[in-house]
């Protein structure tokens, strides 16, 4: 036993010595070699790039993967870390967690609305806390229950309402999903079997024939309504699609969401000029004066 322990002791010292040798190599000769080769490749890149006269290579890696950089601002009393957006003036200081549940997002992305210039940004704003199915699936007849719940973006699990008094609107890290009667049971409409089907399709897409792909897409999108719900379906005083109070919104927030400020803006959207009502705290004449200025 003693001999075994002594051997173990010596072997562990040998390993430690080897580790120390590798470390020393990396910090000395390794560094010299690495520095020389880096300089050579830099010089090559310099001359190539200078020749290209400023036109940089536009690769997938450069545009998509390297575009997800973070930037840290050292304020002394805190470090503000946020997404790096070239030329963006305002600070973000908010991390949008990935939606790990939604299979729609896996193909359409987290900023899916693009077609209509007038509503694309509003659509994307809502898709940060409303699941795609909430607007793009119309449950009819027995399936329709009027029930909606929140699910965590990260876990995908149903959670209690994330709305809190001190939490700014939209900072929920959660999304609203409709519940319907599916297979005779009340359940969320993004069922696990649908998710599994969509993920299986994504995995095997390359190996499928064109008719197989078309069939799979048809099945995945079979619940998607031809006409999605529009703003007024929720932002109205009576019979709103979303039961705001059941979802945890305070009375004050509900009043704002169905107020003339929001509803009126939506109604007059296409011919809308900043009206007096969007100048809180100013009299009508003051607001008009401000607009003229």
């Amino acid at each position, binding site marked *: 036993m003693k001999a075994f322990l002594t051997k173990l002791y*010596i072997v562990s010292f040998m390993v430690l010595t080897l580790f120390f040798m590798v470390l020393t190599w990396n910090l000395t000769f390794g560094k010299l070699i690495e520095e020389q080769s880096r300089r050579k490749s830099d010089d090559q890149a310099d001359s190539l790039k*200078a020749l290209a006269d400023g036109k940089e290579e536009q690769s997938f890696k450069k545009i998509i993967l390297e575009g997800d950089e973070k930037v840290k601002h050292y304020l002394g*009393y805190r470090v503000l870390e946020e997404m790096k957006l070239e030329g*963006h*003036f305002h600070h973000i200081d908010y991390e*949008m967690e990935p939606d790990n549940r939604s299979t729609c997002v896996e193909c359409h992305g987290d900023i899916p609305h693009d077609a209509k210039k007038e509503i694309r*940004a509003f659509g994307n*704003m809502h898709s940060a806390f409303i699941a795609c199915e909430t607007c793009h699936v119309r449950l009819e007849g027995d399936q329709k229950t009027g029930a909606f719940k929140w699910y965590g973006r990260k876990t995908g699990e149903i959670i209690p309402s994330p709305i809190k008094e001190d939490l700014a609107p939209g900072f929920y890290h959660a999304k609203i999903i409709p519940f319907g009667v599916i297979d005779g049971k009340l359940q969320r409409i993004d069922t696990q079997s649908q998710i599994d089907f969509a993920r299986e399709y994504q995995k095997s897409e390359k190996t499928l024939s064109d008719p197989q792909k078309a069939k799979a897409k048809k099945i995945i999108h079979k619940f998607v309504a031809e006409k999605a719900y529009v703003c007024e379906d929720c932002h109205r005083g009576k019979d709103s699609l979303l039961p705001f109070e059941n979802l945890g919104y305070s009375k004050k927030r509900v009043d704002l969401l169905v107020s003339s400020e*929001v509803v009126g803006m939506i109604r007059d959207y296409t011919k809308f000029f900043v009206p007096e009502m969007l100048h809180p705290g100013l009299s009508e004449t003051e607001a008009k004066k401000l607009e003229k200025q």
Partner: protein
Amino acid sequence: MRCKKLLKYAAGISAFVWVAVLFIFCEARAADIGNCLLCHKYPGLSRIDENGDLKLLFINESVFNNSVHANVKCEGCHPDIKKIPHENVRKVDCMLECHIIEPSSEKKFSHKDVETFLSRSVHSKIDKEGKPKKYPEDYPDCKDCHDNPLYRPLSFFKKVRPGISEIVLGRCRVCHKKDEFIFRFYNHITTRLHAIRSPKNIAEVCAKCHEDPALVARHGLSRKAVSSYAETFHGKAANYLSEGIPDCLNCHVNIGESVHQMLSHKNPESITFKDNKIKSCRMIDCHPHASAKLAKYDVHPEFDKEKSPMEYYFTAFFLILTGGTLLPLAGIMFLDLGRRLFSRKKEDKE
């Protein structure tokens, strides 16, 4: 006894009311007269533009309220936005006059002077003869160096909260009545008493251009300025977030002048001109008694035989000395341990 209790309650309630009023003032600081935050307060308000770039239209109200522009109305910088949906929104012109009155001149505030300073600097797009320089797109615009500057009070309490002194605020309240004004003025002054960004952040801003190999090559710059700064004692301290060491601006801007008026090292008026360098080293906060020789020290050394031969050979010598000593020593130790291991085996057999 009962009276004392009542007094205690009254004091408690008045303290609560005071805190609530202060809180309301702080919340009401945003200059959102146009109620733009009705939509822009949502983090998801965004789109992907025609070039595939993310356009994030979200304004984080609490961070914005802690910035030097918190008192500027949205319309102050975006005066062309009058309609929803916003159409053909113009790029923000930082030279616009805004509604704030500059107290010493009593004129409307503008960054116009910065444009003048910049036109005299090495970063101007125009040369001395008024002609555009080669590669004008490489020269910086406001947003290449600036995002919305955040307040950075002079001291930090245990590095977890800004060092805003309640005692000093109490002195302010003797004459000034609005807490909103006091908060802003205090932050403005204490932020401006030191650099608004840490030396590490300043180096990162300069690195955007001065570490870009293509830009460095196009303009024939002799060094990669920021990585070479990082090799020095100053740069290493900056990397550890030291606030007491010189950043790029401390050495490259003439003392007492605008940082926007950075001159070429070839200009005899520049602090980086070979005979003037010592002035920045001798600043009272740095090395006030330094000999003129100190300025000859290369603050942008690169591990390169041609550019910094002295530093190159010194570094190489020490690397080789360290490796050449420690590696054979470790090798001998390894062999010795091996001998002990195998000799034990023999002894065991015997």
